[in-house]
């Protein structure tokens, strides 16, 4: 079937009427090569012209029935905007987790009995290490102070006669590979001054697995919504085929090829896909604009300079490309199923 297509395109102008009475057994598909060659240029021109006029007519048809078209387009736009938005969300989470993953820290809880001078000396020893990028000392007093401030348990703490908190040295390793981090944590925890070395990795891992889950979720939902786009386009095209049944029958009767009959419906699918995804793109951009300010406020509260990422050029193109492909494919499905059934009676 498919390998015949180019032949048919070229021959659409006129597969020459089978006139030569002398070759009785000839099958029309394979003959008239000479005539084809002469006319090839004008044939492909007429084929191109039909594509152009069909594309234009299908668009006009959509615009001539604005209400039903708009309904379909709205459904398509929503079905495409949802995965689009989820994708943008994912992209931002990726960005966030990427930022934080950049500087894992190891908190060294020192022995509670360690005198203040020893604590100082230890933190200076850490400073001299070449495998650490930064060292920060949080003394017992600072720790208590901070705890009081943050927890709101200041009253309770006043009942304690002794500071229960250890001094903490927070170090930031140079090498952020997970294996070397674990190794460094091991090494540091074995130092005599250190009671416990805690690698702030757990939450990073949690975030990573959360992101992975979200990834999967977006994929599954995206696939389901893509399927719904296919069904919506398919159904719309099916109705349109149904309403143009007479035209299809007459066209087939006066010699329209299957490709010729299919073309307007395929173009309808194309337009639905293109316009639907363009509206979806607009929806995504407007939604981002709406949440941009609150996100900025939130980021300010967390003292990060996080900035909401939009779709960007490539992803915008991808969204519209996917929309068009789904439209074309949905149309093909409907056309393949229903067009053969309509034959002149």
């Amino acid at each position, binding site marked *: 079937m498919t390998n*015949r297509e180019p032949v*048919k395109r070229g*021959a*659409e*102008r*006129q*597969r020459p*009427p*089978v*006139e030569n*009475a002398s070759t*009785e*057994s*000839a*099958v*029309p*598909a394979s003959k008239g090569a000479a005539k084809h060659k002469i006319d090839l240029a*004008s*044939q492909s021109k*007429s*084929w191109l*012209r*039909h594509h152009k006029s069909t594309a234009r007519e299908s668009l006009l048809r959509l615009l001539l029935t604005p209400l039903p078209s708009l309904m379909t387009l709205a459904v398509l736009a929503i079905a495409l905007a949802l995965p689009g938005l989820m994708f943008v969300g994912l992209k931002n989470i990726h960005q966030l987790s990427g930022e934080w993953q950049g500087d894992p820290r190891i908190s060294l809880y020192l022995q509670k009995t360690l005198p203040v001078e020893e604590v100082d000396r230890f933190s200076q020893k850490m400073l001299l290490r070449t495998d650490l990028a930064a060292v920060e000392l949080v003394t017992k007093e600072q720790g208590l102070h901070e705890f009081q401030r943050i927890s709101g348990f200041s009253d309770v703490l006043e009942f304690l006669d002794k500071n229960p908190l250890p001094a903490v040295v927070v170090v930031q390793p140079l090498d952020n590979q997970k294996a070397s981090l674990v190794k460094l944590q091991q090494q540091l925890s074995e130092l005599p001054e250190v009671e416990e070395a805690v690698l702030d990795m757990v939450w990073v891992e949690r975030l990573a697995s959360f992101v992975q889950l979200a990834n999967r979720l977006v994929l599954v939902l995206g696939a389901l919504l893509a399927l719904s786009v296919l069904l919506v386009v398919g159904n719309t095209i099916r109705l349109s085929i149904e309403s143009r049944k*007479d*035209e299809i*029958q*007459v*066209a*087939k*009767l*006066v*010699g*329209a*090829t*299957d490709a*010729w009959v299919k073309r307007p419906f395929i173009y309808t699918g194309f337009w639905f896909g293109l316009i639907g995804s363009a509206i979806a793109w607009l929806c995504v951009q407007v939604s981002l604009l709406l949440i941009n300010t609150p996100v900025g406020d939130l980021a300010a509260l967390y003292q990060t300079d996080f900035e909401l990422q939009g779709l960007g050029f490539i992803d915008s193109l991808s969204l519209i490309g996917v929309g068009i492909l789904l439209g074309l494919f949905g149309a093909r499905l409907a056309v393949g199923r229903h067009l053969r059934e309509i*034959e*002149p*009676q």
Partner: protein
Amino acid sequence: MIKFENVSKRYPEGHDALRDVDFTLKRGEMAFLTGHSGAGKSTLLKLIMLMARPTRGQVSIADQNLAQFSRDDIPYHRRRIGVVFQNHQLLFDRTVFDNVALPLHISGYDEDDIGKRVRAALDKVGLLHKEKLNPITLSTGEQQRIGIARAIVHKPQVLLADEPTGNLDPALSEEIMRLFMEFNLHGTTVLIATHDLALVSRMPYRNLQLDQGRLIHD
């Protein structure tokens, strides 16, 4: 031009529409196909149009056995045949001009060429001045003539008509028949299915008469 060799057609539900039909229509010949409704006239035309395939026997057009034509070949086969229907099958969502131009658009003619040919066809059936109207506003006789214009616009080798005068009064019927005669004079092979025996008897053409699927008079 049209050759039927022992053709039978039995529909899936068991009805025999044609039985052993055997005749030849030469290039440039004109003939009537008569018989009661249900005698098999429409089936015979459908076999020529490849809207149906014979159960037995062989149908040839221009010395080509239609059995060799695959589904993909059917459109190109139909482009050399013009058909006129009783219910004229016009499309009411477009003008008279666009109705007549449909076969030319399908065959991929140039836009200028289409304009010329459509006007020539409309001129032949005397409706050139109505090209911009919607066919729904025309009378039955005029609609039938539009149908004829559409059937002959691409200068087919064969012209088929199924009850072309079915809904028309005798004067109009005569006028339509005269049109067919004129096309025949220009070399087109014409086959007209009709049950208007009075009209047929006034015309000096061959009459293929069907009765319950059998050819009983030639």
